[in-house]
């Protein structure tokens, strides 16, 4: 297993007109499971493909282990990739699909056979070895794709949204299986997804990317607790975070249309975005910021309920327990700690630590 380093990597398409990655510097420590998280088109797949060697960076350096791999073709980089659509060779049996990487590298016939059997057993597909891909279900196909990658024992595993084509139930189950598997192997994994739940549950480290730029790198808890960028705060969380646009004046946050004022004792002036998670807002008073709101809408959510409340002209979401009794039209007192408030610069989106 090796570490992967991207240094000042820039990638554009269409002769420079479309920019995919801007000056990205990133280190994936060896043996860690790193998720690259972001919405469609943010450049995460591009990043993966750059590491795989399917694309070449315009600028910057990519290193696997201590080797500079910019000019190496994929075959020589010793990486293995699991594609979103599995990319199984339809004309080969499952056993051959798994074995091909070894065969191409000149492994002995019995050695190959043995390894294939091992991996197949590990993933529970040993009975399927003689079938053709088209005879398998989605989940089975995905395991074969995984087996193909595992059997190669590469330095790095690259996974491109491998779960997105699975049914919701299987997805969760597979999620934990994957995590356990890679932990056991001590593998270096770069995992790409747009699903923040996956990222949060599976990774050692999360890299959040927006429009080709890295917004934050950190452990899942850190990303959640301490977002460094408005985008990160918005993207990560059980539910979408509450965001208000406004100004900081005299230490108070004044919403843009002056419909809401939150005293914060902040020493910064200017246009900001204020964020507060629904789960950080409680009904009652005394946590530091007290407001009065009116319930406009209620959405049940299993063990919880989301209350849409209105204060002045602004609307906030509050997460409460399902058995909390409330109806639309009720007036509530809500409270939250100023420590749970995030302030972001309106222009750059960066987090402001100003209290």
């Amino acid at each position: 297993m090796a570490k992967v380093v991207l240094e000042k990597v820039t990638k554009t398409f269409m002769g420079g007109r479309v920019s995919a990655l801007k000056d990205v510097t990133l280190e994936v420590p060896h043996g860690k499971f790193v998720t690259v998280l972001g919405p469609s088109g943010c450049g995460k797949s591009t990043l993966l493909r750059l590491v795989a060697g399917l694309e070449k960076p315009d600028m910057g350096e990519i290193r696997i282990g201590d080797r500079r791999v910019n000019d190496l073709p994929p075959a020589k980089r010793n990486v293995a990739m699991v594609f979103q659509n599995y990319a199984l060779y339809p004309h080969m049996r499952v056993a051959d699909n798994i074995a091909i990487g070894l065969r191409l590298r000149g492994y002995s016939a019995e050695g190959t056979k043995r390894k294939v059997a091992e991996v197949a057993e590990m993933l529970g597909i040993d009975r399927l070895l003689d079938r053709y891909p088209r005879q398998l279900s989605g989940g089975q196909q995905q395991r074969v794709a995984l087996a193909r990658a595992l059997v190669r024992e590469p330095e790095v595993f690259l996974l491109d949204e491998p779960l997105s084509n699975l049914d919701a139930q299987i997805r969760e189950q597979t999620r934990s299986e994957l995590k356990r598997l890679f932990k056991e192997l001590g593998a270096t994994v770069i995992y790409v997804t747009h699903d923040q739940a996956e990222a949060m549950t599976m990774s050692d480290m999360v890299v959040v990317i927006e429009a080709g730029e890295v917004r934050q790198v950190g452990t899942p808890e850190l990303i959640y607790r301490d977002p460094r960028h408005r985008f990160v705060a918005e993207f990560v969380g059980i539910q979408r975070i509450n965001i208000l646009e406004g100004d900081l004046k005299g230490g108070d946050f004044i919403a843009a249309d002056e419909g809401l004022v939150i005293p914060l004792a902040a020493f910064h002036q200017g246009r900001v975005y204020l964020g507060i998670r629904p789960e950080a807002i409680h009904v009652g008073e005394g946590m530091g910021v007290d407001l009065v709101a009116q319930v406009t809408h209620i959405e049940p959510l299993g063990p919880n309920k989301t209350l849409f409340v209105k204060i002045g002209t602004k609307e906030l979401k509050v997460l409460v327990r399902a058995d909390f009794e409330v109806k639309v039209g009720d007036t509530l007192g809500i409270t939250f700690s100023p420590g749970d408030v995030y302030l972001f610069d309106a222009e750059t989106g960066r987090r402001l630590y100003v209290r």
Partner: protein
Amino acid sequence: MNFRYRFFASLSILVVLLLRAPSKAEVLRMIGPEDVGGAWAEVIKRFHERHPSIRVNYISGPWSTDERQNMYIRSFLSGDPVELVYMDVTWTAKFAAGGWLLPLDEWFTPEKQQEFLPGAVKAGYYEGRIYRVPVRADVGMLYYRRDLIPKPPRTWREFERICQRYSRPPDVYCIVFQGMQYEGLVCDFLEYLWGAGGEVIDPKGRVVLDSPQGLEALKFMRKLIERGWAPKAVLSFQEQHSLSAFSQGKALFMRNWPYAWTILNRQDSPLRGKVGIVPFIHKEGHESVGTLGGWGLGIARGVKEPERASKFIEFATSTEAQKILHFRRGAVPSRKALFFDPDILKVSPHYRDLYEIVMRARARPVHPDYPRISDTLQKHVSAVLAGVEGPEEALKIMARSIEGTLRGREEGYLKRIAIDYDLRRTLLNTVLFTSISVPLEFILGLLIALLLTAQFRGRSFVRLAVLIPWALPTAVMAMSWQWMFNNPFGVLNDLLVRVGLAERPFDWLSGPSGAMFAAIFADLWKTTPFVVIILLAGLHSIPQELKESISIDGAGPLRRFFHLTFPLLLPFVRVALIFRVIHAAGIFDLIWVLTKGGPADSTRTLCIYIYEVAFRYDELGYAIFLTVLFLLALIGMSFLIVRLTTLGYERT
């Protein structure tokens, strides 16, 4: 909406009815070669003056007599026969036997027949009745350069001596004659055969071709080419080509028909006054015999009011008309008296001598299956001339083939297949053609398809260019290919010489291997685009992900091709292969126009053979039998191809 439907329906019915009734013209048609000199136009004009109510139309057909015979036969078979049958001496038996001609005994009486050359008249008889009035006679003769050769040869030996002494190939050859695979070759061959005392069929009806005399005749002809006394190009010569070469001073002797004399002595001819004629050479101890040629007119059965046709024939064979044909066209008259006519003798004093030659001319074997006999002779004599077959073997095969033909269609079809030599040869050609052409197409097609998957500027233009050869009409482009393979005006020879790949221009269409190569090349050009398109579709259908995956798995471009691209391409290869194999095995258009199956039958493929059996030998039953067998073979082949190209994963 109902109204619109009904309107269109009735309109289409009306159109069908209108189109269905072709107006039967009251015009009498005849097919002949290009009317050089306007001889026939004049004859027809005068006839119209005298008989304004009868209209005659002269249709210009191709030079090849075989082609025009085919046209007549097709018209008979179609039920719309061409009324005036302008026939070669050899067609009578077949046409009469086919029931396509009206007997003319009623008005072409023996008294009238006396006025004509006996041989010419005899050629119009079949089984005791006369079907043809001779218009012009012809006999093969030897032309020689009077200014260069003091004494013309009469025997083969004398001829050889002169050749050794005077000919200087490649600037000046000794002799040019008609060596192409067509009827003319038979005429030439027979002159050598008869001149050596040989015969094709004896008076009792037995085939005696396979004899020492036959062997000598063939060997002698072959010697002419081997020794370089005749240019190899004679293999592609008909009358007009030999005349062209002779008049350009490329040969000392020429075997040709009398018409050439008139042309060679025209005002603007470079050889005016320098040419003499003698009877054709014979072997020592035997006699000179010229092959009787000539044309005559008959009436097709089914013509309304045949008296109108007979009126025209009477005029066309009158002294007046024959004189027109002679003066304008160099035609040799068929009326005896005209050989002594002062007007004619003034211009062609040699006609007195010609009379003797003509009277001794001999007709080719008379038999309804003559076309088939002629075909056999043509094929194998030209094969010997081309050096493709040995004379002994050729004689044996010819004799056996003619025997088979004479024995008639007594054999059942199954047995016939076993003894049909032509069929075997044809199958070989077909297999050869297919097995070379198809793989080459696929290799070339694959390379081009791979090229087209890459991105580069102008790619769509290349793709468009690739489509063009496939869209163009095969038969029409085959004419262009003929022109390109031509020697000496062909552009391909020119390019080869310029680039340095060949020292001398090559006679593509004259030799068997050259002709096959030309056919394959032209076919390749035309059909590769089809393969390209299908393979391109296949290449595009391979998901990008698979290609990426396998390169991550460790395959470079070459191994990627073998492990991924090619297996996934197989379904498309299968489609293209089936189409192509079937099409190549059944090829017709290209070869028919390019080489007609020659030279020496080296490019005759199965479908050409079947076509000739049906429409030239008039044996529809056998043709259909062969077709059915061929179809079954193709179906079997398709199954085989599917079997061989289906991988395991498609079978599940």
